[in-house]
């Protein structure tokens, strides 16, 4: 691949999906895009780049998709789901006792293992959640992985990575060599395409957000921006779960780490509090009293 094409692809991917490739990742781009070029009957990456430059939106989105890392497995890292069961949900059950509803967002759902792990965790607690309305939304930039998520069909390898055998027997049906998650779990989740670089304020407010192992591919500025926008669509007493190698520290003051549960974050409510200082006139009133400019 010629350097000019690599530079073009780096810039293109960063703008389109936020993927922040360092200068030495040509091999990664080649290994992911060569099969794509062959499939499209193109001579190589040079021609692929030419298509994007000429404005082929189909090729452009195929390239974004091919460069997206979709590695995931059921109950990945285990601890976040223990936290969900032992800390997050018990606290939310109390906090939302009157409303009896919860909104959960899985912001990089990939092939569905994470939202389904959340759904199974909730199903296992159903005695305490009887009569509750629980909405789980799984989003991902890649249409292809969303289709797989919706089908809920996994290989024997996939169902053995992280999924306890009891849950496999309980919530999956074997069809030949594949395993499909049961319709009652599938129906707990709505899937939608979403690019985290774009505005997502229309998603509404969430009580719990899982945004794991996706921000690692973004640069510092983008991470800061996304944290800011995540905070805006989260209830002030909500929970944010990040991946094991991710943190908010040094990137944003919109969230603060949970006191003793690693990987969990809460909105920084102090920051969002109304700016009324005791003994002083509220800012809004003062502004109203001054002439409009």
């Amino acid at each position, binding site marked *: 691949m010629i350097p000019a094409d690599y530079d073009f692809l780096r810039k293109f991917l960063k703008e389109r999906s936020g993927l922040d490739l360092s200068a030495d990742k040509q091999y990664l781009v080649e290994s992911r895009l060569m099969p794509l070029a062959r499939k499209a009957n193109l001579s190589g990456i040079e021609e692929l780049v030419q298509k994007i430059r000429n404005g082929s939106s189909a090729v452009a989105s195929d390239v974004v998709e091919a460069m997206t890392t979709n590695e995931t497995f059921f109950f990945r890292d*285990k601890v976040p789901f223990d936290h969900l069961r032992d800390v997050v949900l018990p606290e939310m059950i109390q906090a939302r006792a009157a409303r009896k509803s919860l909104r959960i967002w899985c912001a990089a759902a990939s092939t569905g293992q994470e939202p389904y792990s959340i759904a199974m965790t909730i199903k296992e607690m159903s005695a305490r959640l009887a009569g509750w309305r629980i909405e789980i939304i799984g989003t991902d930039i890649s249409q292809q992985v969303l289709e797989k998520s919706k089908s809920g069909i996994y290989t024997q390898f996939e169902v053995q990575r992280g999924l306890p*055998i*009891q849950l496999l*027997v309980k919530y999956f049906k074997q069809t030949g060599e594949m395993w499909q998650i049961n319709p009652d779990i599938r129906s707990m989740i709505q899937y939608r395409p979403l690019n985290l670089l774009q505005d997502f304020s229309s998603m509404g407010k969430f009580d719990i957000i899982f945004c794991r192992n996706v921000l690692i591919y973004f640069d510092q500025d983008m991470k800061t921006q996304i944290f800011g926008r995540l905070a805006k669509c989260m209830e002030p007493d909500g929970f944010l779960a990040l991946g094991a190698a991710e943190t908010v520290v040094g990137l944003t003051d919109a969230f603060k780490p949970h006191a003793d549960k690693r990987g969990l974050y809460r909105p920084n409510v102090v920051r969002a509090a109304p700016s009324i200082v005791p003994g002083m006139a509220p800012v809004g009133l003062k502004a109203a009293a001054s002439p409009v400019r």
Partner: protein
Amino acid sequence: MKTCLVVDDSSVIRKVARRILEGLDFEITEAEDGEKALEICKQSLPDAVLLDWNMPVMDGYEFLRNLRRMPGGDVPKVVFCTTENDVAHIARALHAGANEYIMKPFDKEIVSAKFQEVGLI
């Protein structure tokens, strides 16, 4: 160091399993059928058993039922590792006291995920 008894009539599978489990810091003993495995358990109980189902002399299911009746035999974590991959077999194994279940073919990630699941890693 935790101990794991690898029970399989295929020496190739035992070798592969040994390499994976030694990489996870287990001390390995091997047996080629359920009866030999029971003999080893009577000498000293391992922390874990990686157990094939179909073997000559005594199969894995019979071994498990015998093990669970031994004094202290409820302690070792038993992880089946077999080509029997249908729900009926899995349910029978769990009912007889298996802690986890691996469907062959397997790799290092699967073994390590399953051993983590039962709290051995």
